[in-house]
């Protein structure tokens, strides 16, 4: 550590040179800078703690089994989150169903098959740009395409429209993480396969993909956890805010956890703010579990080549 250096004797007596090292004040500035850097990090962490503590303190009182299993209500003490919880599970499963084949397939194409031509470059630039498009814009796309133009198939403002919209939103994330997982597989594995006479696809299917599964799964879970935390696109596509039934099919109306929380936070009555906090605890717990699973997969199944 460098802290003891500042106590070094400062050399002021030299007259031959106009240069004064002036170490004392320079080290003081150094120390201030160091404290500022640690302080900034500390402030960020403290705010995170403040946020978590507030939410737990506000919401733990109204978080009980009744809250988990009840439908929303006009009276805060009867209101529950079951419709939103089931809606979120529906959305999550559908998004996974759409994005896993599409995202992994596109990732394999770009990483393993694609030559460096205009199509590949266009897709790559495009994926980079899509990541920067605000999520509410995806909501507007979903509203126009899935909820209106494709209404006969999707049933309008349905759980299917919402899931399709979120799938488009996280598709670039899944593609990028698939590519990273594939890139981590050493080339020697592929070359060994080719040497035995296998085609590119046979090598991918029987060796590269199985080895990359933990990495791909980690990416998919993280992308899904982003999808279920998204609020804005679902509002735009038309998730309902007050629903007292569970989705019955793909064309059913639905609500989701963030939408329900948004609705409760927006109400003027204070009791609804407490149950909003309870809803946030449930949502954050889900995200925590998903992230935990992702980290576990990454640490325990990732082979070192």
């Amino acid at each position, binding site marked *: 550590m*460098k802290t003891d250096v500042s106590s070094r004797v400062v050399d002021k007596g030299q007259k031959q040179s106009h240069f004064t*090292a002036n170490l004392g004040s*320079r*080290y003081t*500035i*150094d120390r201030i800078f*160091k404290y500022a*850097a640690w*302080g*900034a*990090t500390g*402030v*960020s*962490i403290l*705010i*995170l703690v*403040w*946020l978590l503590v*507030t*939410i737990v303190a*506000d919401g733990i009182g109204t978080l009980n089994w009744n809250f988990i299993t009840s439908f929303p209500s006009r009276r805060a003490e009867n209101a529950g989150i079951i419709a939103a919880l089931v809606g979120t599970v529906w959305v999550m499963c559908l998004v996974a169903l759409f994005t896993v*084949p599409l*995202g992994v*397939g*596109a990732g394999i*194409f770009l990483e393993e*098959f*694609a030559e460096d031509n205009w199509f590949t470059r266009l897709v790559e630039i495009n994926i980079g*740009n899509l990541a*920067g*498009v*605000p*999520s*509410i*814009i*995806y909501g*507007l*796309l979903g509203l*126009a*395409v899935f909820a209106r133009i494709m209404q006969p198939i999707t049933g309008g403002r349905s759980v299917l429209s919402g899931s399709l919209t979120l799938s488009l939103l996280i*598709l670039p994330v899944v593609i990028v993480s698939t590519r990273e997982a594939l890139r981590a597989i050493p080339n020697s594995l592929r070359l060994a396969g080719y040497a035995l006479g*296998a085609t*590119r*696809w*046979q090598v991918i299917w029987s060796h590269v993909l199985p080895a990359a599964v933990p990495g791909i799964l980690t990416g998919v879970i993280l992308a899904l956890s*982003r999808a279920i*935390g998204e*609020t*804005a696109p679902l*509002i*735009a596509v*038309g998730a309902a805010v007050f629903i007292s039934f569970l989705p019955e099919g793909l064309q059913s109306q639905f609500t989701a956890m*963030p939408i329900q*929380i*948004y609705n409760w*936070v927006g109400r003027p009555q204070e009791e609804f703010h407490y149950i909003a*906090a309870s809803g*946030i605890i449930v949502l*954050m717990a889900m*995200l925590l579990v998903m992230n935990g699973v992702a980290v576990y997969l990454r640490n325990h199944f990732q082979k070192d080549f």
Partner: protein
Amino acid sequence: MTDNVTGDIAPGSWSPKRDRAKAIQTIVKIIFGSFAAISILTTIGILATLIFETIEFFKEVPISQFLTDTRWTPLFASKQFGIFVLVSATMMISVISIMVALPLGLLSAICLSEYATPRIRRILKPMLEILAGVPTVVYGYFALLTVTPFLQIFLPDLQGFNALSAGLVLGIMITPMVASLSEDALYAVPRSLKDGAYALGATKRETVTSVVLPAALSGIVSSLILATSRAVGETMIVTLAAGANPTLGFNPFVPVMTMTAFIVQITKGDAPYGTIEYKTLYAVGMTLFIMTFALNIFSFWFVRRFREKYD
């Protein structure tokens, strides 16, 4: 040809079905290639819907009015469409958020890459990642119900909905992004450069601020621009905490309405297709898209143009 080969290795009756394997590979390649094309279709879809409805909008509202009106009242009887009312609110909140995220994010990045020991770094980084993973609706809750009442202790003039706490919390939200992208840039500065500075007698702070930061400047600036773009497009925090009151001006103490908040306000209700409200939605979306797209392009360009390469 394959038949000949089979004949040569007579003892076994096995022959690799090369033709079938190659056919399967071609099919797989075409299917996966079309999956990759979906991302292009998404972009085309976004552009097409935005442009189509925006053109419909400008058939009813002249573009000069859209750009110069000073009021935003699309839901009133006397409709006025001054987009700058919404843009000013978005800009004000983004500036506040960058004023928070620049010092916090950059200093955190310096702390992580220069001061923290590897062990502490392993603890701090996941915590910043948690901060980045918190859903935005949760930040909205925090801004509206925790930060605003807290600020009102010191600023009695602050209204229940205001741009200030929305901007501050938005700043906290984008801090991890600035921190992690800037840290990557700082990390990429070669050690020899720092060692050179130390050898010349520079202190650690002098090395960081006059050697490492300038060398990483392109990455840091581009992380800030990307964070700004994120702030401009952020929806839930501003919808919940900044209110829904379109006012022109830069007073952070009063309720304002951003572009994203307007989109939520309209889509939350039932805006039937073909109405002027529905078209307004896409005109605002187009403006938002252009702003974020310009920022993203500028950020990429900046990195390319000003990157210092060390090999």
